[in-house]
C-alpha cells in the first residue's frame, strides 16, 4: 500500500530546482523512485518534528539532508551534556542553548535551501492543533505518555499521519498511525499504563545508537509517505531488539470501537493528557511520598561533628560504581528482603541519585518500624552541588 500525503494548500508549490539543488540532490534525482518529481514533492512537503532529542536528531538531519522543504521543530528543552551521547545534532558547544535554536543552526548549515521553523514551547492541548495544521506530516519523537496521546489525538482530529517511534534501553518500536485506513495509537494502547507500573528510571537509560536507528526508520517512513512510494508501516508495528539484533513485526488492527478513530468517535477535542495518564506536570507521582529529610549541608556538618550516622544507598550497583558516599548499597528493589541487614536502633540516612527512590525507601522503612531514618534531600546530585563538587553528576 503506497499511501500518499497531499501537501497542505496555501503557499504555491515549487515547480523547479536550482542548479545547485540539482547537484545537491543528484543521488535522489538519478533514482527512478525519487527523480525530479519526487524531489519536488520533498521540497513542497511540510513536516513537523515533535522533540529534537534522541529520535529527533537523525530525523532532523536526514529530512533536512533529503530536502524536505519546510521542517518545524518543537522542543522546550535546553541542550545538556548528558544529551550528547545520542543526540547527534548537537555539539559540545551547544550545551546550555535551547535545543530548537541549536538544531536550527545545525540543520541550516547542512541544507540552507530549506525553511526551518522553530517552536520553543511545550506541546500542549492548547497549542497542538494550531501548530499541526500548517504541516502535512507529524513525527512523534517525544519521551512521555501524555504527549504521545496528545500527538495521536491531534493528528486524528486533523486527519494527519503520525510517524511514531519509541525506545526503551535496547528496544524500539516504530509504525505509522493516523492514516485513514490504518489504526491509531489508541487502537494499540487504549489506556496508558498507571505511573506506578512504568519501569522506574533505575532501569532506564538508552544505548546511544538505538534512537539513531529508530529515528532513521521514522525518517525513511516520512520520506516514503511524501513520495507515495513503497510499503509503509501503516497497520504494522515494527519491533527492534538491538541486543539480539532482531527486527520483528506485528499486525496492528484498526479498532472499530476506538474512541478516537473508530466508527463512533467519542473524543472530539483534546483533553488533559496529564490527568488521563495519571501524572501531574513533570513529577512522577509514585515518589511524591512525604518523608523526613536532611539537607546535604546539614549531613556534612553532622558527619564533620563526628555523629554516628549510617548511610544507606538505594541505587543500583552500576550507579554505585559511578560515585558513592561510602554507604551500604541495597538497591530499592531488594530492600524488602534485605531489611534485616539494617539496624533500626541506629540513625540512618538514605540516599539515591536525586532523592526520589530514597524517599520511597524511607517511607517503606518507616512503615517497617524504623524511626530514626532521614532522606538525603536532592540525593547525590545535591551533595555534589552543595557539598562536594568532586563527586560526579550523572
Amino acid at each position, binding site marked *: 500500500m503506497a499511501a500518499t500525503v497531499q501537501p497542505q494548500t496555501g503557499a504555491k508549490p515549487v515547480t523547479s530546482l536550482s542548479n545547485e539543488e540539482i547537484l545537491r540532490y543528484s543521488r535522489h534525482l538519478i533514482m527512478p523512485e525519487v527523480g525530479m518529481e519526487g524531489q519536488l514533492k520533498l521540497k513542497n512537503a511540510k513536516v513537523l518534528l515533535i*522533540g529534537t*532529542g*534522541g*529520535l*529527533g536528531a537523525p530525523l532532523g538531519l536526514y529530512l533536512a539532508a533529503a530536502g524536505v522543504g519546510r521542517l518545524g521543530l518543537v522542543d522546550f528543552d535546553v541542550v545538556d551534556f*548528558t*544529551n550528547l551521547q*545520542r*543526540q547527534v545534532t548537537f555539539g559540545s558547544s551547544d550545551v546550555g542553548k535551547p535545543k530548537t535554536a541549536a538544531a536550527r543552526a545545525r540543520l541550516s548549515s547542512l541544507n540552507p535551501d530549506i525553511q526551518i521553523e522553530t517552536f520553543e514551547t511545550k506541546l500542549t492541548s492548547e497549542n497542538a492543533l494550531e501548530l499541526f495544521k500548517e504541516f502535512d506530516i507529524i513525527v*512523534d*519523537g*517525544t*519521551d*512521555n*505518555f501524555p504527549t*504521545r496521546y496528545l500527538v495521536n489525538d491531534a493528528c486524528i482530529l486533523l486527519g494527519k499521519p503520525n510517524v511514531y*517511534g*519509541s*525506545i*526503551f*534501553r*535496547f*528496544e524500539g*518500536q516504530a509504525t505509522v498511525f493516523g492514516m485513514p485506513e490504518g489504526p491509531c495509537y489508541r487502537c*494499540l*494502547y*487504549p*489506556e*496508558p*499504563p498507571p505511573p506506578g*507500573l*512504568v*519501569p*522506574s*528510571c*533505575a*532501569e*532506564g*537509560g*538508552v544505548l546511544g545508537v538505538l*534512537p539513531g536507528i529508530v529515528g532513521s526508520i521514522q525518517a525513511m517512513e516520512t520520506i516514503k509517505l511524501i513520495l507515495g512510494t513503497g510499503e509503509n508501516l501503516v497497520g504494522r*508495528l515494527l*519491533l527492534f531488539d538491538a541486543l*539480539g539484533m532482531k527486527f*520483528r*513485526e*506485528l*499486525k*496492528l*488492527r484498526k479498532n472499530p470501537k476506538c474512541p478516537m478513530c473508530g466508527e463512533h468517535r467519542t473524543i472530539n477535542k483534546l483533553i488533559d493528557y496529564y490527568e488521563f495518564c495519571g501524572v501531574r506536570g513533570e513529577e*512522577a507521582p509514585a*515518589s511524591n511520598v512525604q518523608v523526613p529529610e536532611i539537607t546535604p549541608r546539614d549531613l556534612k556538618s553532622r558527619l564533620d561533628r563526628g555523629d554516628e550516622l549510617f548511610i544507606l544507598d538505594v541505587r543500583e550497583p552500576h550507579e554505585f560504581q559511578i560515585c558513592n558516599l561510602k554507604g551500604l548499597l541495597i538497591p530499592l*528493589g531488594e530492600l524488602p528482603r534485605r531489611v534485616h541487614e539494617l539496624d533500626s536502633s541506629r540513625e540512618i540516612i538514605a540516599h*539515591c*541519585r*536525586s*532523592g*526520589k*527512590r530514597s524517599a520511597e525507601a524511607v517511607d517503606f522503612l518507616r512503615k517497617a518500624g524504623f524511626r530514626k531514618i532521614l532522606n538525603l534531600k536532592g540525593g547525590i546530585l545535591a551533595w555534589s552541588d552543595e557539598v562536594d563538587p568532586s563527586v560526579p553528576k*550523572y
Partner: protein
Amino acid sequence: MSIKVMIPTPLRVYAGKRDSADIAAATVGEALGRLTSEFDELRKHLFTEEGKLRAFVNVYLNDEDIRYLAKENTPTKDGDTISIIPSIAGGTSKNAD
C-alpha cells in the same frame, strides 16, 4: 507442546532478567498463567487482582493481537510465539530520579 513467550525489556526485571521462556500450554492464558506463577511481580504487571489481563498490556500470538482472536482462551500450538508488547514512551530517555 512448547510455546515461546517473549518477555520485553521493561518487564525482564520482574522475570529473573530472562528474555524469553519456553512453556507447555494449550492456550495463551495458560501460558501466561504458568509464566507468572513463577514471578509474582510480573503477575502484578500483567494481570489485575481479579486475574484479568491489564488493558495497557498487549499480547500477541505470533503476529496477531489476541484481542482479535479468542483473547486469553486463544489456543496455542507447538512452536507458537507469544509476545508481550508493553507501552514504551521513550524518545530521549531522561534520567529522572
